[in-house]
């Protein structure tokens, strides 16, 4: 394990950003956001940025291919792919876990090379949460915030940051900045872990009953009477899906630039009315069905296709951001017990 004093953390950021681009959470007037590190940029102490870190690997919009159309002929122009190495610093355990879930979608056959390319160029440095919020419920999905994933994991006490590599890429990263780091005892971060564990034990959202969400129970849950009531106030906006670290639905669109066609993909939301509209109609005509789709996907469909892993990491963003305060925890509570 390595360590660095917090008052000299800028030297770590400088060293990290010397050979690659460094992104880290920075305070803004409206919550934290991941920003590119430049001299003098300060690391935010906020628990989690407004937006999740999925942007780095699955950006909100991404150019896929360009076309040039002339008369009856079409020319396909493949865009150059970003090849910049980057480090994302300050990712929490929940977001780190979300990458594993996104991997299951994008890296399964056929591999999404856009995502894969970004994944290969990025190194993730996680930091143990030191001030969990009331909206946190990652422990329900088997995440231990005191042992965050990513390539390098960090723990922070009052004056020191402890770093430990989880992967080969992480080791290489730490070696590349070895000059600014000092050795530390492997148990140095234990007291931090204990403190955080004690706080975690007091979190209000614990022991959610997830046992009802199984593939066998799919039709039962799908047909539940509760959806109507739960979705009643839903505005049909995409806030929950866009702040969610695991939501991965996308749309493919063409944009006519006047001198060519750009085909790009962008995030889409199953909460939107047009999401499934096609020539023969729309199978999800009301918000009840769209709302149900989102939560059924996270809690039943995704696990059914991925060995029982839920597509939620309990980061709590949707709890904090939903305009009408409806969220996955309320859905789990309403359906979990009643539909076994």
């Amino acid at each position, binding site marked *: 394990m390595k360590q660095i004093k917090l008052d000299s953390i800028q030297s770590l950021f400088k060293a990290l950003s010397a050979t690659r681009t460094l992104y880290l959470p920075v305070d803004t007037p409206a919550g934290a956001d991941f920003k590119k590190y430049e001299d003098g940029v300060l690391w935010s102490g906020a628990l989690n940025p407004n937006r999740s870190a999925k942007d780095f690997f699955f950006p909100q919009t991404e150019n896929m291919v360009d076309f040039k159309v002339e008369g009856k*002929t079409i020319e*396909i122009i493949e865009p150059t792919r970003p090849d910049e190495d980057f480090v994302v610093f300050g990712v929490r355990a929940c977001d780190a876990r979300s990458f594993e879930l996104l991997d299951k979608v994008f890296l399964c056959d*056929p591999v999404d090379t*856009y995502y*894969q390319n970004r994944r290969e160029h990025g190194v993730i440095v996680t930091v143990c949460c030191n001030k969990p919020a009331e909206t946190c419920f990652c422990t329900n999905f088997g995440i231990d915030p005191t042992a965050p994933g990513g390539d390098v994991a960090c723990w922070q006490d009052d004056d020191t940051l402890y770093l430990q590599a989880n992967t080969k890429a992480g080791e290489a990263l730490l070696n590349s900045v070895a000059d600014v780091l000092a050795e530390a005892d492997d148990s140095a971060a234990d007291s931090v872990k204990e403190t955080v564990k004690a706080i975690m034990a007091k979190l209000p959202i614990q022991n959610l009953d997830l046992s009802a969400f199984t593939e066998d129970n799919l039709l039962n849950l799908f047909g539940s009477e509760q959806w109507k009531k739960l979705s009643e106030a839903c505005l049909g906006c995409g806030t929950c899906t866009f702040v969610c670290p695991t939501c991965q639905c*996308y749309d493919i669109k063409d944009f006519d630039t006047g001198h060519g066609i750009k085909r790009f993909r962008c995030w889409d939301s199953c909460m939107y009315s047009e999401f499934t509209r096609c020539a023969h109609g729309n199978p999800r005509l009301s918000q009840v069905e769209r709302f149900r789709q989102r939560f059924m996907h996270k809690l039943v469909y995704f696990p059914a296709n991925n060995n029982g892993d839920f597509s939620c990491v309990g980061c709590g963003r949707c709890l904090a951001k939903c305009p009408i305060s409806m969220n996955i925890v309320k859905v789990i509570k309403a359906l979990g017990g009643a539909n076994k």
Partner: protein
Amino acid sequence: MSVQETLIPKLGVVTDVRIDTPDVKTFRVNALDGGKVFDHMPGQCAMLSIPGVGEAMFSITSSPTNTEFMEFSIKKCGCLTNWLHQMEEGQQITIRGPYGNGFPVETEFKGKDMVFVAGGIGLAPLRSVINYVRDNRQNYGTVDIVYGSRSMEDLVDYKEIIDVWCKEEGINVYLTIDREQEGWDGHVGFVPNYVKELGFDTNKTVIICGPPIMIKFTLAGLIELGFDKTQVYTTMELKMKCGVGKCGRCNIGAKYVCKDGPVFRCDQLDEMPNEY
């Protein structure tokens, strides 16, 4: 196969346009240097697009045994299809695929007596299987084709049906139209009723494709006749964007139509939520 290859399309060129009905045209598509853009199995789909207009999934109408070109029968019903209908020979389009599971022609269908039930443009995906079966006649038993449409003019591929299928030994073609029409001396009535009237042997394997309401009633009729749902296959269609099970919109329950479908056995549909 990676998405680099699948999400980025290949170029194809329209080499022939055939007007089938007032709103259906069949397009022949070749690779730029002739031949097929890719190989496929019966029931699989391809994503066709005109850059700037849009991209959509269409079933490949031609049989894999056709090694020269692919065909798509397309009904005019939206923005992209309107555009496609204005195409002339020589127009390039982009194409990617093949997507989906296709019909189990080499496994479950082998040695079976086949009944094909189609309505309207629903013949498009079935035509691929029918011709595949015809070209591998030794592998399959009897073939019955029940095909219905609103009117005589709306029967897709009428020429091929009359000139080829009807004349082939071991293939029984039953045509029907919804309403009486001058110049039509065949059967008149809806497809589900006709299927019941014909009363097929219950050890045959049935493939249905057509409007959802037709599928529903035909299936009910077949079960009345004593068929089991495991003998009946159909193909689904929902909005698709990526074709590889990642964009997240064509799911019915935990199944993605583009990846796990579009062909489903009717007993599988029972296990899926009724959201299609």
